[in-house]
């Protein structure tokens, strides 16, 4: 018999709706999985065992009276500990933010309205300011495929929890790659939506001009359900655009005929580990089999995008943290204060120029790339998954920053939607993901392409073996 914790989010939601099993049974199964994995991965910062079971019992009672709340009714989830929940302490992975929140983040309120249950808070890099998954205060998050390896970050716990099937879905945040990198390293789907698609109200900021909230799940269909629940305008966040939200799940099955997928041939995209390159090639072949047309393309140089994104990210990060850097420098973990501190010295003129350049660069990319193709197909990371030890040793090197952000920062700066989906395993047994980037607000197409790819390949069906103790 299938362990309920192994169900996808879509199957879990459908099963509860059809009364095949109860929310309480599903939540019990997920909690058992959490307890089996927690000491090995450190994915959770807090586990609300009792609260989750009470909430699931309430969900079952409502369902019994025909009063199911919404499309995620009774489904247990957990999220990066960066989303405000009224009367709850949200750590942001830090020891500085230690007071209860006064309100609830819009995305959590929307998941509540959809009927989802929250079973705990997930680990993250301190203040979402890092790409590896280390956290000096709460301990590093470890990859369930190999606990000596990084999960990626900053949404480290979200990726580990979903990959190990502790929960069927989670929210993360992505400023420069914090949803997509962990999705790659842990072998799950991670979607960074278009800037303006999802409200950031109640989300602790890393850099206002770049921050997004994105779903993380095992399948594109599951990510579609989560995005459906959280997307749309929000009077509490003026950057959340007042645009219609498509039916993402309904769009998943559309054939890819007529969709052109650009394959960049610039050197910066092809200098890759041979194993990653082979998986990317195989994933392109599958997308072509699904009906897409592959088009070789030379993109503009992505380096100015990365540099501009880092200028904006550093300057805004310093604006957020400046007072604490001065008053509580010892309360930041190693490397975090140093990373944020640099932004104090970015001249205002450079910051403004980077933001002025953003529109100009977006226009160039829309004209030269998205005028020719609907999607770009890219790596998410160029090398095999580093160990936690090696990533920590290399953390201060400029090369490390370039290595982790090379394929993710550019599209964060352009504000474009980007999705990472698992594309197989490297010789060392670690998963790897392909990245698809689309036009503004083309999340439905990204999810559609990833869904057809997953249906053909089945990589998402593989799970890391349960720990023996």
């Amino acid at each position: 018999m299938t362990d309920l914790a192994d169900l996808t989010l879509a199957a879990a939601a459908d099963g509860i709706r059809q009364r095949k099993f109860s929310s309480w049974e599903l939540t019990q199964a997920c909690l058992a999985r959490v307890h089996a994995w927690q000491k090995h991965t450190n994915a959770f910062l807090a586990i609300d065992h009792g609260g989750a079971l009470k909430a699931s019992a309430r969900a079952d009672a409502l369902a019994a009276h025909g009063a199911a709340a919404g499309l995620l009714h009774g489904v247990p989830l957990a999220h990066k500990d960066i989303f405000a929940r009224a009367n709850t302490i949200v750590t942001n992975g830090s020891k500085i933010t230690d007071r209860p929140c006064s309100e609830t983040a819009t995305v959590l309120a929307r998941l509540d309205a959809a009927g989802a249950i929250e079973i705990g808070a997930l680990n993250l890099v301190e203040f979402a300011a890092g790409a590896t998954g280390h956290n000096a205060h709460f301990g590093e998050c470890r990859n369930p495929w190999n606990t000596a390896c990084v999960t990626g970050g900053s949404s480290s716990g979200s990726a580990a929890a979903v990959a190990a099937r502790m929960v069927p879905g989670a929210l993360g945040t992505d400023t420069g790659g914090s949803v997509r990198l962990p999705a790659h390293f842990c072998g799950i789907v991670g979607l960074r939506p278009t800037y303006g698609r999802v409200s950031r109200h109640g989300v602790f900021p890393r850099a206002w001009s770049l921050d997004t909230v994105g779903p993380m799940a095992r399948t594109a269909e599951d990510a579609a359900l989560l995005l459906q629940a959280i997307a749309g305008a929000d009077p509490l966040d003026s950057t959340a655009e007042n645009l219609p939200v498509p039916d993402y799940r309904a769009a998943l099955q559309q054939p890819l005929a007529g969709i052109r997928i650009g394959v960049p041939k610039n050197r910066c995209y092809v200098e890759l580990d041979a194993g990653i390159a082979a998986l990317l090639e195989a994933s392109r072949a599958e997308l072509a089999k699904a009906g897409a047309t592959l088009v070789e393309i030379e993109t503009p140089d992505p380096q100015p995008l990365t540099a501009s994104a880092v200028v904006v990210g550093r300057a805004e990060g310093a604006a957020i943290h400046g007072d604490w850097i001065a008053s509580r420098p010892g309360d930041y973990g190693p490397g975090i204060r140093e990373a944020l501190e640099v932004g104090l010295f970015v001249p205002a003129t450079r910051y403004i120029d980077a933001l002025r350049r953003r529109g100009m660069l977006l226009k160039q990319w829309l004209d030269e790339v998205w005028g020719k193709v609907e999607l770009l197909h890219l790596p998410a990371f160029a090398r095999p998954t580093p160990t936690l030890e090696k990533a920590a040793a290399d953390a201060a090197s400029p090369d490390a920053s370039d290595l982790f952000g090379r394929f993710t920062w550019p599209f964060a700066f352009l504000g474009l939607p980007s999705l990472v989906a698992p594309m197989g395993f490297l010789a060392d047994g670690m998963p790897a993901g392909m990245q698809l980037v689309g036009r503004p607000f083309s999340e439905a197409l990204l999810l559609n392409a990833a869904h057809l790819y997953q249906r053909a390949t089945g990589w998402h069906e593989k799970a890391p073996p349960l720990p023996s103790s």
Partner: protein
Amino acid sequence: MSQDRPGAPSAASVKAMASELYGLSLDDARAAAIAGELGRFEAGVAAAGPVAADVAPGALFRQLLLAHENQGARRA
């Protein structure tokens, strides 16, 4: 960015700013590391070329995202 603009702040400037603006004490090595990082930003951004004088921060970016919403939603 015009050709005659000064480059990134030097290590000495970083150290002085840290003290005068933020009350922070940086040692020489840390100030040099920050100056080095700022220099790398400068070089990377400069590669994007000049930006027209009448471009306001943020406005064109949002306008383009919204203008392409239909294309994003629509399939080829």
